[in-house]
């Protein structure tokens, strides 16, 4: 197991180098539009001397491989450069924004786990019942709704209309406000963010559990005299949940980097919203820094998912030699 983890960590190094090189190629002149000097200085005219100074400071006159090495060197010293627009260190901006995204992602993952699995188990156990039809139908609808549309509809109903009708309503923007305790701000964005994945988690749980319920070892468990519930909880779920864990893990990875839509709709001060704004203004250091951090986080999450397999499924005790 330890050798496996060690090997997996070593495998992360080439992946990391590959991704960063790819990002750097985008920076080569002519690949993406826009002159970085203009972005740093704004539209006002500057003297050639100042221009040359900025080029030198940022090593923009050096070949790309040199810039890459320089950037890597800085990265390992915790320096991700400075935002062109905000004139602040990128590291500071990311440290400020990342926790907001992570908190939202964790709340969303919790919703997915509990709601998704519960709905999936219910519809598998009560197959073809009213509940099964309800779950199947609502998951079909959920997966086909665009996230930004769902977010806006929720804002309209639970934020604006409820307020108009004098019902208890929910905040629709930002993480804090004077009118609400902090956690209430999580409700709508987290539900929106979790919606599609909850539906997928429910479907995967259902199909996996149905498949597992047809397995011989489930019959063995019944033959031991366990109740129907014990058979499913003790013998069914642990087998059925392996693919669900994979899915949720990958989804957490995706959410860490890609909650741009939800964060934008809800004005959530997270990394996705920040990336969105940085791309619009071609604030290259922020995009690069954020993507690199996301890559690292996704790799760590994937590693954790793989390790969790080993606990769920002993057949995947990696690298262990059979006695």
């Amino acid at each position, binding site marked *: 197991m330890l050798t496996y983890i060690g090997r997996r960590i070593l495998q992360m190094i080439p992946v990391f180098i590959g991704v960063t090189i790819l990002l750097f190629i985008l920076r080569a002149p002519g690949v993406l539009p826009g002159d970085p000097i203009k972005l740093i200085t704004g539209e006002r005219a500057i003297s050639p001397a100042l221009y040359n100074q900025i080029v030198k400071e940022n090593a923009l006159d050096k070949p790309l491989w040199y810039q890459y090495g320089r950037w890597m060197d800085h990265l390992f010293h915790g320096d991700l450069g400075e935002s062109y627009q905000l004139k602040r260190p990128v590291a500071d901006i990311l440290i400020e924004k990342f926790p907001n995204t992570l908190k939202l992602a964790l709340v969303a993952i919790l919703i997915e786990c509990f709601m998704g699995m519960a709905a999936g188990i219910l519809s598998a156990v009560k197959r073809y019942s009213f509940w099964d039809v309800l779950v199947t139908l609502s998951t079909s609808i959920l997966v086909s709704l665009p996230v930004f549309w769902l977010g806006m509809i929720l804002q309209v109903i639970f934020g604006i209309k409820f307020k108009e009708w004098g019902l208890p309503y929910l905040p629709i923007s930002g993480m804090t406000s004077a009118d609400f305790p902090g956690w209430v701000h999580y409700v709508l964005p987290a539900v929106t963010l979790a919606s599609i994945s909850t539906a997928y988690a429910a479907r995967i749980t259902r199909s996996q559990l149905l498949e597992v319920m047809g*397995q*011989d*070892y489930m*019959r*063995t*468990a*019944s*033959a*031991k*005299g*366990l*109740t129907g519930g*014990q058979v499913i909880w003790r*013998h069914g779920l*642990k*087998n059925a949940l392996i693919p669900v864990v994979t899915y949720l893990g990958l989804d957490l990875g995706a959410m860490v980097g890609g909650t741009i839509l939800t964060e934008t709709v809800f004005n959530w001060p997270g990394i996705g919203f920040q990336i969105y704004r940085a791309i619009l203004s071609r604030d290259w250091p922020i995009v690069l820094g954020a993507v690199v951090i996301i890559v690292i986080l996704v790799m760590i999450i994937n590693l954790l998912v793989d390790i969790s397999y080993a606990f*769920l*499924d*002993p*057949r995947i005790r990696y690298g262990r030699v*059979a*006695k």
Partner: protein
Amino acid sequence: MPPLLEVDDLHMHFFTRDGIVKAVDGVSFSLEPRETLGVVGESGSGKSVTALSIMRLIPEPPGKVVKGDIRFRGDSILAMGEKEQRKLRGNRIAMIFQDPMTSLNPVYRIGKQIAEPLRIHKNMSRKDSWDAAVELLKQVGIPQAADRARSYPHEFSGGMRQRAMIAIALACGPDVLIADEPTTALDVTIQAQILELIQEIQARTESAIIMITHDLGVVADVADHVLVMYAGRAVEFGTADDVFYRPLHPYTWGLLESLPRHDVDEKGQLCPIKGQPPSLINLPQGCAFRPRCAYSQGVCTMERSGLVEITPGHFSACQFSGDSGFVEKACGFLSRER
């Protein structure tokens, strides 16, 4: 004193979209302590369904007992509540399944799976039940049982897994052990070991065994009585000696004849029973075996006869079994050494 286990005119039908599958259509037998009953027949003859019905492991729907009863020590299992049925299952009546490769849960340690029935039926603690599981593994012939109990199923070979399944079935010291083709999925040398183990256990524990198989050799080795099934019904029942040396039903003759003969010519032709078992949705009129029977006559299409006692304790469902001249026809292959 009522028999230990009694299956009385059991009809287990499956209600499917294509029609009613009469998987078991009138089977009766009874079992006494220490007795071994062999149940033989082709695939689809209703052997396994009979066993699963006793365990109440047939999902209902689609299955349904439309007629008949199953009694354990005189009490109807079918009339019991779910809770009482569970108290029998895995405790007084236990079952060994056909495919040990898939019958163990891949994510739990062998020891835990063996300990599980003890924990539910005997209320044993985690520690005590684990120790008992190690002891059971020893009894079924697994070396270094204390270590092996910590293994997962994928670390066991097929034969070892079947031993582990037997240990699970034996955990609570059942009165009836149902073995549903316990050796079919194993290779021949292991088959013999597993059969020996089952017999050895029976000698030690005094449980009764229902041995379901399509391998007549297995039954000849272990059974006291033999029930031959065809298309959901019993066609012949008697002591193992009667059924093997004085068989009465043409289907039994066919089964015996189809055994490979090692004594004559190794390259000799096999003699299978021609044709296919009938559809259980649409049974032929009269005797279900008639379309494949070399001896059928007009009267066979008329009605289906139930088991009739031909000689004391020896029953056959063939109209002609009472006719000694007819039975003589079987002599050709019966004379040979078996």
